[in-house]
């Protein structure tokens, strides 16, 4: 399975505009948000968490869909023959997770530059951020594989994944209310359980999607 992850990475590198495209998209969005909110009071601190998760979500959908749209049918057929579906989706999950974590970190850096960072406690923020990203990547992987089979429509991907992502976002944004890890234990556990649920579901359901 390690080879599969490596393969995903190679494929992404092959399309030369892959990662830089996402980075550029990210930067332009941050700048646009900066200018869009400039007239509000305290725009730098008030909207931080919400904006942050908004941007992460949009970029995540964009990048995950980009990855899946690079698949084509003949290669799919080849994969069908040589590896079992669980390891394929496992590889995709892990690759998406790593990608999204990278995007997360870059977004945090960009946000700290443009908007002041009101992060209370780094630990709590990172815990929520990590778990939220995990949930995002899990649900996006599953829904993008569904959307991929259903006609490669990017809008379909967004429509399918938004309702599933909403509880994840709700729980992740609630990191703003907590100062220590002890306090936020309940929310973290809920987020973790949703993540596990999504990943397990993906592992179980993917073979059925794969069959066609």
């Amino acid at each position, binding site marked *: 399975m390690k080879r599969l992850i490596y393969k995903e990475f190679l494929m992404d590198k092959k399309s030369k505009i892959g990662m830089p495209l996402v980075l550029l998209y990210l930067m332009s969005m941050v700048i646009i948000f900066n200018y869009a909110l400039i007239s509000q009071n305290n725009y730098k601190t008030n909207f931080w968490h919400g904006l942050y998760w908004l941007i992460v979500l949009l970029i995540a959908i964009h990048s995950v869909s980009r990855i899946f749209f690079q698949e084509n049918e003949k290669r799919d057929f080849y994969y069908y023959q040589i590896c079992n579906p669980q390891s394929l989706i496992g590889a995709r999950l892990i690759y998406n997770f790593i990608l999204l974590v990278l995007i997360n970190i870059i977004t945090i850096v960009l946000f700290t530059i443009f908007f002041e960072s009101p992060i209370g406690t780094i630990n709590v923020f990172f815990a929520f951020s990590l778990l939220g990203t995990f949930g995002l990547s899990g649900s996006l992987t599953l829904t993008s594989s569904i959307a991929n089979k259903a006609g490669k429509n990017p809008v379909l991907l967004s*429509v399918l994944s938004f309702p599933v992502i909403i509880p994840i976002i709700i729980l992740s944004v609630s990191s703003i209310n907590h100062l220590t890890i002890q306090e936020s234990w309940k929310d973290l556990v809920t987020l973790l359980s949703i993540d596990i649920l999504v990943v397990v579901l993906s592992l179980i359901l993917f073979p059925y999607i794969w069959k066609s």
Partner: protein
Amino acid sequence: MKNRTWKIVAIILLIYTFLGGLFFKVPRLPILNETIRVLHFHVPMWFGMIILFSFSVFYAFQYLKNGSESSDICSVEFANVGIVYGILGLVTGMTWANFTWGEPWSGDPKQNASAIALLIYMAYFILRGSVKDIIKKARLSAVYNIFAFTIMIPLLFILPRMTDSLHPGSGGNPGFNAYDLDSNLRLVFYPAVIGWSLLGIWITTLRIRLKKLEVHINGQ
């Protein structure tokens, strides 16, 4: 269906619900007063929706297991009527909230969660609409059905309980479980739940029969 008694039972229960709900004596609590009668119409909608969606998921599993088109039809029609019940539940809830909480939509977690649950199932129908091939459509929608149901359950039941909510049963409000419900209300409530759920199942079976006939005619 040859055995028609359950439909007659459904009708009788519903007539009883309407008459009893509107005419029986209800306990008067502050703020709620007589609007508590909506309980018999609002909550059974949600019970009915959950039951219909459970049937839908069950048939989705069946489809994945044996690939028969009839399971797929059953799954879709149960989801269809489930969404209708969900919308009705939301509308009755909003009407009730207008009188008791002051505004139809107060951003209450349970309200939001139920709106999101409806969005999930509407996305299910969009998914079905966007795939042309019948077998692929059925398989993809079965997978998404299971996914949606599994996400919906924590969304509707776990998340609102964890946060402060205006709804009874969460955030420090007394709940609607068996120990809190006045026995007068219970007289009408339990039959109401059964009656509305049976009605939902009846509507669904009619739609399934209609759909199967359509498919049969179109296939030949």
